[in-house]
């Protein structure tokens, strides 16, 4: 057994992100003193009220924004910039997909950037288009797809680059309840079939409980922290009607009632 951290493990230590308010000149923390270890292959949900800095934390892990102090490590490497090991699924498919490319071309984007030959690209995109259930829609443009299908494209697009970690920022927030349920179920299935680490941001307790192996509760901002972490001992697929589910729901809900 190796003691080296795995490539899909995330270590966050005393992480701070602040910005200086120009007028006042004092420091405002968006997130303050965040400590977190996400194990390789884990499905971790970040749950917190809107505006608490969940997305900021995700952006810090993705390398989109620079931290003020502290550490973010993926495997042994300090995060300094975006990298192909960390794929991001954005909340808004419309702003992140490339509308001038077809579904297949979107899915092959990362591969094309790496100059992978067309035949190999096709093979890989076939695989992930099938995985997310978009067979038959390869040559459609994003504008011809429904919201749920667009998020499937986003998922296939990042998976085709074989990232170790999936960072998901409320990807199902804009979908209707039915589509959302389907997507949640399929995401769990896809996660089980691959061995990705997932960090999933949401403000929906039910979604957190349906998806997460562990749920980290973030306090309301500013100076947001992860206050509690819950282990969810339920097996997949999870049963909304189960009494254990309800018990956990009430327990977590209590955090936000104060």
């Amino acid at each position: 057994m190796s003691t080296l951290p795995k490539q899909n493990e995330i270590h966050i230590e005393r992480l701070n992100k602040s910005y200086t308010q120009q007028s006042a000149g004092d420091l405002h923390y968006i997130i303050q003193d965040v400590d977190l270890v996400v194990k390789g292959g884990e499905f971790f949900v970040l749950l917190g009220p809107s505006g608490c800095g969940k997305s900021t934390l995700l952006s810090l892990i993705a390398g989109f924004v620079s931290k003020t102090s502290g550490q973010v490590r993926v495997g042994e490497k300090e995060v300094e910039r975006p990298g192909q090991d960390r794929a991001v699924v954005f909340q808004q498919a419309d702003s992140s997909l490339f509308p001038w490319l077809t579904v297949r071309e979107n899915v092959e984007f990362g591969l094309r950037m790496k100059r992978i030959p067309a035949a190999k690209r096709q093979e890989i995109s076939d695989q992930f288009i099938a995985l997310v259930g978009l067979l038959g829609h390869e040559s459609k443009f994003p504008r011809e797809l429904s919201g749920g299908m667009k998020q499937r494209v986003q998922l296939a697009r990042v998976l085709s680059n074989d990232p170790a970690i999936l960072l998901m920022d409320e990807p199902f927030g804009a979908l209707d309840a039915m589509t959302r349920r389907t997507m949640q179920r399929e995401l769990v299935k896809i996660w089980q079939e691959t061995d990705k680490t997932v960090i999933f941001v949401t403000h929906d307790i039910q979604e957190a409980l349906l998806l997460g192996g562990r749920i980290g509760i973030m306090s309301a901002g500013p100076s947001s922290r992860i206050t509690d972490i819950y282990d969810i001992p339920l097996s997949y697929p999870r049963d909304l009607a189960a009494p254990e589910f309800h018990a956990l729901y009430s327990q977590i809900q209590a955090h936000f009632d104060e």
Partner: protein
Amino acid sequence: MNVKAKKGLLHVLFWIALLVLWQLASLIYGPEILPGPIYTAKGGYELLSDGTLLQYIGISAYRVLLGWTLGSLIAVPVGIVIGKVGVIRIFAEPFLNFIRFIPPIAFITLFLVWFGIGETSKVMLIMYATFFIVILNTLTGVMSVEEDKIRSARSMGASEWQIVIHVVIPATVPFIFTGIRLAMGTSFMAIIGAEMIASNEGVGYLIWNSRLFFRTDWIFVGLICLGLMGFITDRVVAMLGRKALSRYGVVSTTSLKR
């Protein structure tokens, strides 16, 4: 009768009504002050049969198309660079917003001094008329590329150069296209000004020169030719845009069916 035929009929009726009104007005004011459609048609026939009209249209169209094409070809890359490089933008933006208020016609004398009395000065004037509109539109397009698109490309392994080629430029295409279409309008204004002041041929020259013979009907012929030239080129450009660039989200705004 179907909707399309009805619409077509309405169009024909509209134009006939316009011609009738025009003819009536000319009867009231007399053909010297306001030449009617019949009188204008006669004048047009006169100019057509001795070949001058087609020659003038050809010359004006050549100047506009050459200057407009060259101007656009230079303006697009310049606009992308300005939009992409913050340091350049800080200096370029006030300058662009200063110079765009100086109409091309104001430069005619200077351009004649700088580039001579020949074709160069006219083509340069059209380039000037095209240049800043296309730059400003391109620049706006580059600035409004969604951050999520750039971030997702970056985390899929695209280099900064690849991001410009594969994300920024395609996302900017509709803005560039709008810019070059608008520039076509200012190009026509500029060329007529230039031909009125410093030319021996062209539609602008025709309009200006006709005053010497008090041929108001020839002036009307010139005006109608201008309108038709602009209308036709705009339609052709819009159609080419719709055909070739539809995947980038270029839509025709002049299409009769909504």
